């Protein structure tokens, strides 16, 4: 089990609709918290990596602009993008920068201000995160793509709309106790009932997925500070080590995808690498954050990560196994569904949650039993990119 690179500081802004500030000010919120958490100054930072999905704000080449605002010049800085998994990719790159010996302490900052454009414009941009030559001309969008997976999965594995709803009820349970979440309301089964005229979650977006099956757009930032073993021991009383990292990619066009009922290939390919590197198995994971951009994505992730056999992910939600008190707590911070999904900030926010859990500092969201190993699963696009990262004390 390698203990070469540690997380020494984490931060996250509140995830909100309509952040009242610019992207540099949004970035500063997560950065300040992570720096204070690490107890270091900007002079201790060797390099910075900025992560977001382009075209939500007007700034081209944001790394230099944000590095200046955060006080991180003249150190080297650059931009990393894998849409929704940008900041976990940033962490992988920063890990490599440190492991190579080139740098000692690297800041990874994820940000996204989605509220500068309308929801329909946002869907159009997200659709163009897929195949613009051969698919976007049909009017594709993220919910429709995930709906293709949901429909195939439901037809083969007996997954029901009620199962999907139960994933949303779980995330809402924890969204209510996470003060940084964008969606803090509770959700009840009647909110999904099409016969109920006030049902907030029942409207169809892309069959079989409904409003309540989709995550919330948000503005937000996240920050993860990584250090080599020597610096981690100097700066941090509770370093959390990166034990394993896996990453994979998949064909962009749906016509080139394997069996849709088996979920996203990047999930299980990245997981296999991360487990192997860390020398652990799915049974060793005490708490996990998975990429629940849609309810179906959480069910598929259970299987891709080996928490449930193929086709049996529904059992975990039926048995409440992924609740805080269950054998494998998943997304107990509200997940993307309730905490919100500010694209470029999401991976770093997931990592922050797991780091706090492993330090025993997750407050009302803390899972019992002093978890020692946690996992983050972060997917970009419709399973175009996937990162799985395993952390340990």
């Amino acid at each position, binding site marked *: 089990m390698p203990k070469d690179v540690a997380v020494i500081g984490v931060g996250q802004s509140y995830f909100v609709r309509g952040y009242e500030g610019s992207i540099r000010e949004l970035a500063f919120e997560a950065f300040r918290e992570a720096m204070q958490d690490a107890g270091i100054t900007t002079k201790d930072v060797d390099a910075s990596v900025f992560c977001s999905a382009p075209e939500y704000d007007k700034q081209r080449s944001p790394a230099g602009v944000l590095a200046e605002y955060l006080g991180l010049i003249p150190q080297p800085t650059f931009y990393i993008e894998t849409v929704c998994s940008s900041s976990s990719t940033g962490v992988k790159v920063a890990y490599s920068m440190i492991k190579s010996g080139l740098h000692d302490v690297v800041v990874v900052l994820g940000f996204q201000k989605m509220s500068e454009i*309308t929801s*329909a*414009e946002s*869907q*159009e941009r*997200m*659709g*163009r995160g897929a*195949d*613009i*030559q*051969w*698919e*976007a*001309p*049909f*009017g*594709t*969008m993220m*919910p*429709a793509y995930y*709906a*293709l*997976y*949901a*429909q*195939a999965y439901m*037809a083969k594995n007996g997954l029901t709309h009620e199962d999907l709803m139960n994933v949303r009820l779980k995330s809402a349970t924890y969204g209510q106790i996470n003060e940084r979440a964008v969606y803090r309301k509770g959700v009840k089964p009647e909110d999904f009932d099409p016969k109920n005229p006030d049902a907030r979650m029942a*409207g*169809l*977006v*892309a*069959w*079989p*997925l409904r409003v309540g099956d989709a995550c919330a757009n948000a503005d937000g930032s996240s920050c993860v500070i990584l250090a080599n073993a020597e610096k981690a021991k100097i700066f941090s009383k509770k370093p959390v080590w990166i034990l394993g990292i896996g990453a994979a990619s998949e064909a962009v*066009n*749906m*016509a*080139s*995808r394997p069996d*849709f*009922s088996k979920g996203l290939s990047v999930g299980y390919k990245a997981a296999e690498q991360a487990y192997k590197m860390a020398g652990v198995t799915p049974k060793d994971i005490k708490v996990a954050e998975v990429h629940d951009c849609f309810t179906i994505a959480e069910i598929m992730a259970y299987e891709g990560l080996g928490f449930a056999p193929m086709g049996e992910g529904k059992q975990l939600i039926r048995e409440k196994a992924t609740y805080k008190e269950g054998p494998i707590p998943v997304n107990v911070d509200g997940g993307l569904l309730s905490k919100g999904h500010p694209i470029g900030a999401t991976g770093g926010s997931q990592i922050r949650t797991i780091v706090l859990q492993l330090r025993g500092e997750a407050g009302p969201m803390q899972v019992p039993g002093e978890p020692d190993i946690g996992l983050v699963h972060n997917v970009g696009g419709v399973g175009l990119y996937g990162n799985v990262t395993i952390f340990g004390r």
Partner: protein
Amino acid sequence: MGFEKFGRKSFTGMTKTGKFVDFLSEGKVEGTVCKKCGARYFPPRADCAACFSSDMDWFEMPKKGSLETFTIAYYAPYGFEKDCPYSMGVVDFGNNLKLFARLSSDLKPEDIKVGMDVSVRPVQYDDGQLSFEIVKV
């Protein structure tokens, strides 16, 4: 050239596979096949990823496949709102050949089932745009 005519709204003006649109106007949905190693591609590619050859030929897609999955969009991205609702799906023709497209608008939602036999045909919209769509056999 001419690829702006593809689909409800094209985001690509120029591609070496632009002849695909000419085939649509002739009533054919075609993929590409590598003359050197025989690898077949849909959507079409100008270059073979298997052997690096750029010497490609065209072949007509099979007439019969199975609907692997589908969705019905009740919400559309910017620029597609007028078409709502519309369905899209993936056809599996076997032999590692699949296709993604809209389903024909004359198919009712309740008539669309995973696993049903389907075919594919070109379609021309009122504004002259050319595409292809999935139809029930």
